[in-house]
């Protein structure tokens, strides 16, 4: 009986496996062709000289030359520093602002909550290019509404948001607030999933709102904070579009927005230096990988998972 049964059973199993891989095939194929092979190829490119506008130089193996160039190229350190400074300004705000908004639109004292949620989310839908153009107008040092407001309210001249290299990173961060909608919604969902008994128990114990926030709210939504933190850190190192648009790729003012990715873009696609460009890309990949691993390693200490994964 058992022997007779096992044959159709295994045939069924084989059929399931075949069909399963048929359905997975598009992704497996795409992953190999558009991710795995290109990653390997770009590692190979990084040890070659390969310039598309200088075909006479050909495609030749140069060993670690490109990697050594990273060390002697002052632009690498400078652009990384810009990305780090930007991350230091924008990442904390990329957590605090959506968390604050989520708490606001979750407040029992707010009327028409759904309207607020949709409207705070709405700017996320605006194409980045339009976002940059709109904010450049609003933050225009002469005719922008923000500086006109500063003039009207304080009688003082407002900052030169996109021309002053000391504050241009802040201006870009402010512009980024229009993109916090997604993080706000996930944090809102996290807040709604915190069991109300916890708050009730804390209230019975006489806990104040600050204590409740840091001891209940934050730990309970820490997985979502962690997820958004990871995306924000990676995003700040990959920052490109906004920086490209505000100065047509020049990194103005005075090179202060020459983010790492912008430098990579110029190297690979303006100067067509694919070998060095691929080296920069791999450096970026290694940085992002290291940061992610550090985050995941430390996450055990502060991220709280209420239930195990299924």
């Amino acid at each position, binding site marked *: 009986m058992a022997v007779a049964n096992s044959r159709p059973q295994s045939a069924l199993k084989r059929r399931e*496996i075949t*069909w399963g*891989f048929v*359905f*997975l095939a*598009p*992704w497996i194929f*795409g*992953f190999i*062709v*558009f*991710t795995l092979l*290109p990653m390997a*190829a*770009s590692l190979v490119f990084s040890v070659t000289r390969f310039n*598309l506008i200088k075909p006479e130089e050909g495609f030749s193996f140069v060993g670690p030359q490109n990697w050594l160039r990273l060390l002697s190229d002052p632009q690498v350190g400078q652009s990384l520093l810009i990305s780090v400074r930007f991350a230091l300004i924008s990442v904390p705000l990329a957590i605090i602002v959506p968390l604050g908004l989520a708490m*606001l639109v979750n*407040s029992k*004292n*707010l*009327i028409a909550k759904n309207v*607020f*949620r*949709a*409207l*705070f*989310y*709405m*700017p996320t*839908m*605006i*194409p980045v*290019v*339009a976002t940059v*153009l*709109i904010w450049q*107008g*609003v933050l*225009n040092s*002469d*005719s922008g*509404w923000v500086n*006109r407001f500063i*003039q009207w309210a304080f009688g003082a001249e407002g900052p030169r948001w996109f021309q002053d290299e000391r504050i241009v990173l802040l201006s870009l961060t402010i512009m980024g*607030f229009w993109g916090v909608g*997604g993080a706000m919604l*996930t944090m809102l969902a*996290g807040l709604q999933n915190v069991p109300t008994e916890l708050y009730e128990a804390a209230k019975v114990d006489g806990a104040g709102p600050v204590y409740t926030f840091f001891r209940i709210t934050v730990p309970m939504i820490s997985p*979502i904070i962690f*997820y*958004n933190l990871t995306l924000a850190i990676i995003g700040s190192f*990959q920052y490109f*579009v906004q920086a490209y*648009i505000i100065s047509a790729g020049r990194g103005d003012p005075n090179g202060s927005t020459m983010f790492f990715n912008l430098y990579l873009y110029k190297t690979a*696609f303006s100067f067509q230096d*694919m070998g060095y460009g691929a080296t*920069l*890309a*791999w450096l*970026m990949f290694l940085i992002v990988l290291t940061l992610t691993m550090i985050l995941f390693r430390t996450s055990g200490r502060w991220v709280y998972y209420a239930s195990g994964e299924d």
Partner: protein
Amino acid sequence: MRVSSSATGPSAWSSTRAMRKFLALSSVSLFGLLLLLSFLMPLGYMFTTSFKTIQQIIDPAASLLPMSPTFYTYAGQEYPLYNVPTPQGLQEWALYRKGREDSDFIDPANPSAGPIKWIGRWRTLEPVVHLDIHIENFGIALDTVKFPLLFRNTFIIAIAGTIGTLLSSIAVAYGFSRFRLPGKNALFFILISTIILPIQVTLIPKYVFFRVIGWGGTWWPLIIPHFFANAYNVFLLRQYFRSIPKELDEAAMLDGATPLQTLLYVIVPQSWPVITAVAMFHFFFAWNDFFEPLVYLQGKEDLYPISVGLTQFANAFGSRPELLMAASLMAVALPLVMFFAAQRVFMQGIVITGVEK
């Protein structure tokens, strides 16, 4: 909410309580409203600026709305109107002769009386303005940005990619949600980790590859890769598919349906909300995508989507904010209308991808 004065009667205790509740409600709501208004203020800037002339924009004293000073024609000459305080109340008079401590005005209601002397500094007077909107900005922007062409390009790229990502992501998500496969968890982990992979690390070889096979300067590199699924969409669809009872597809299988038929006739018909969400995500992604079109379509202006075309326009017309804002308004209108039409489905999708991972 549930504790209100009506439940306990009009005692002093409950009315302070209701009072406090009202205060909390109004202060939080007012704060939220102010915050929302400042958050969306740039949209107001875009909207009003798109109807202005450059004069109305750069004048530091001008209204935030598209207003212009009103003039009165007297003896063949134009004179600006001001709100002048007179013994008969505030009058709209035309400034005929400017003086330091006194000026001459013409009363448009009685021009034949000639210039009237008014003591006071005319600079302190409020000019009379009228709404002066310039819809022609949109026409100029439409023509110079070649919006119809950009719209067409964006639509083609977006719709082709949407079809591709739907076909492939639905299949892959079905594979991940319904089949017991060796190494499935490892594959799923790899799929999810591609989310943090910087696109730059694959971009350069892809760029070279697409150029070598003759796809440089075409839409193919922006469309074809979407026929091979992506992590966000697969994740979102898989979560949804897993919530559909397995008994349903088992029943279909017993009736002799193949897995493909089960997918098409059992799973897909129940999954329209999530499929709509994925389609919209991709559409917005394509509408927004800047980096890849910039790289792959370098120099091919006739093929640019809105994002790249708009940037190019902005570089050429940086000194014409009114045209930039008119163009931006046209670029954001469709995404915003679509968002409000399908807001619920859309926001739900964000929450699923963001929270459950």
